[in-house]
């Protein structure tokens, strides 16, 4: 367990480049506040107050995706770029422990991001809290953040293999704002596309969050929460397989330090 925390701390401290005061304040506090406020006001401008609430929730959850996937995937890329991952590959360290340690300290940031984003919307945009099922709301946010972190791990492996986290991240950001129900409701898509949307992390969690906010009973909400948790576990597993395959391939080909242009 001690090793787990040491690895969690060292990957967070050494490979998370936004961990400086200007960068951290900008990403964890200011950005979610600006984003949620923007979309809540846009919802009110373009549609109606109900849309403002939906967008505030959706963009609040989407902001967790921004900080988790951005932070985890950059730490994977920098691990290769800085040459530090080579030390892991020559050591007998438990790969599963190392893999799981990479998201631990990023996870609380996601919850802070949501709290600040949604808190801003509550203060500056009139949102009615009368019906909220608080326990279901909190559980759905906690599970959704975990699921997104697991997805970040899978994307991190993709980023380390491609040596570039920013392009991957940009692609993910674009796809998720369209297909997870943040702006466009799932009902607007054909049934087949809707099912594809539901295998993305965040989609089911957002459904649960919106239901809990509207006062839905826990008996109705547990199904999307469970599905979100399972989605996260699948991505976590896929990410681990990718992480091991990456190690095998770079060892076999001697490609770890190979320049991208070669």
């Amino acid at each position, binding site marked *: 367990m001690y090793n787990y925390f040491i690895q969690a701390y060292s990957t967070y401290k050494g490979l998370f480049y936004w961990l400086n005061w200007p960068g951290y304040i900008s990403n964890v506090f200011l950005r979610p506040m600006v984003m949620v406020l*923007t979309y809540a006001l846009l919802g009110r401008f373009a549609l109606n107050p109900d849309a403002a609430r939906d967008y505030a929730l959706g963009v609040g959850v989407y902001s967790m995706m921004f900080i988790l996937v951005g932070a985890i995937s950059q730490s994977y890329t920098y691990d290769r770029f800085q040459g530090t991952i080579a030390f892991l590959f020559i050591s007998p360290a438990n790969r599963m422990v190392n893999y799981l340690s990479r998201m631990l300290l990023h996870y609380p940031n996601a919850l802070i991001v949501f709290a600040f984003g949604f808190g801003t919307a509550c203060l500056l945009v009139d949102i009615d809290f009368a019906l909220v099922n608080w326990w279901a709301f909190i559980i759905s946010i906690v599970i959704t953040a975990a699921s997104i972190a697991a997805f970040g791990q899978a994307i991190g492996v993709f980023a380390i293999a491609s040596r570039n986290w920013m392009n991957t991240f940009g692609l993910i950001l674009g796809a998720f704002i369209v297909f997870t129900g943040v702006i466009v409701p799932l009902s607007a898509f054909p049934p087949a596309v809707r099912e594809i949307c539901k295998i993305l992390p965040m989609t089911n969690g957002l459904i649960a969050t919106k239901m809990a906010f509207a006062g839905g009973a826990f008996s109705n909400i547990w199904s999307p929460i469970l599905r979100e948790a399972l989605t996260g576990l699948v991505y976590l597993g896929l990410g681990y397989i990718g992480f091991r395959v990456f190690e095998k391939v770079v060892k076999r080909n001697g490609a770890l330090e190979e320049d991208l242009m070669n």
Partner: protein
Amino acid sequence: MNTIRAIMAAFIQQWKTTATNIGSVSMLFESVPLAMALAWMAMKSPTPPVLTYLLVGVPLMAICNGMVFRVGGSLNGELSGHTLDFALISRTPLMAVLFGKSLAQLIFRLPMGVLTLAAMFIVTRHLPEVASIPLLLVAIVFVCIGLIAISLLFAPFMVLVGGKAGFFNAFMPLAVVLSGFMFPIDRLPVVLEEVARMMPTSWAMASIWQAINGIDSAWSFISTLLACILTSIFLLFVTYFMCRIVEKKLRITGELATY
């Protein structure tokens, strides 16, 4: 004349750097999914001018995001790449170099706006319904002037905060919302609305809103354009003084080569 030559050289350098970078080229497509989602939202709006406003504002937002990020980071990039040394030992004003760079970024990103508009058109099947197209074009030129002024401001600002990674991530959406690209700034809370009035782009967007709905009087349109020019000049002065501070800081502390 020498200044114009320096601006042209900075323009060409920035253009070549940007156009040969796969990251910059892929960034041209980055706003397309968001634009499509916003187009869907605009289409559902019961108020027709909202659709037109977003059809005009979202492409400008895409250009703004790219410009603030790239121009804002350009001075810091020169510093860490040790090419700023040559600008500082020459007589060329730093502002001229930055202006050339931002002009290149603006022109490089104009296709991004067209791509974004095309993506929105695919979703909405609507072209912007504008009361006066000539006035809209004039207003868009002023938005571009405002964009250059804003993006230039971020270049020395980034150096003064130490070029920290991730710093821009909050300022890009903030610049968009304060510019009124997504909705008119009178929808903002009072404090933010007052801050937005310092942005030249917010005045230019007000003139776009007038061009869309039809102007009440020529003076109201011209006054917003004048306000855009005045705020641009103000921001350029602020940028100039920030560049002076950057230069002094680098010379006095000797940080240039140890950065």
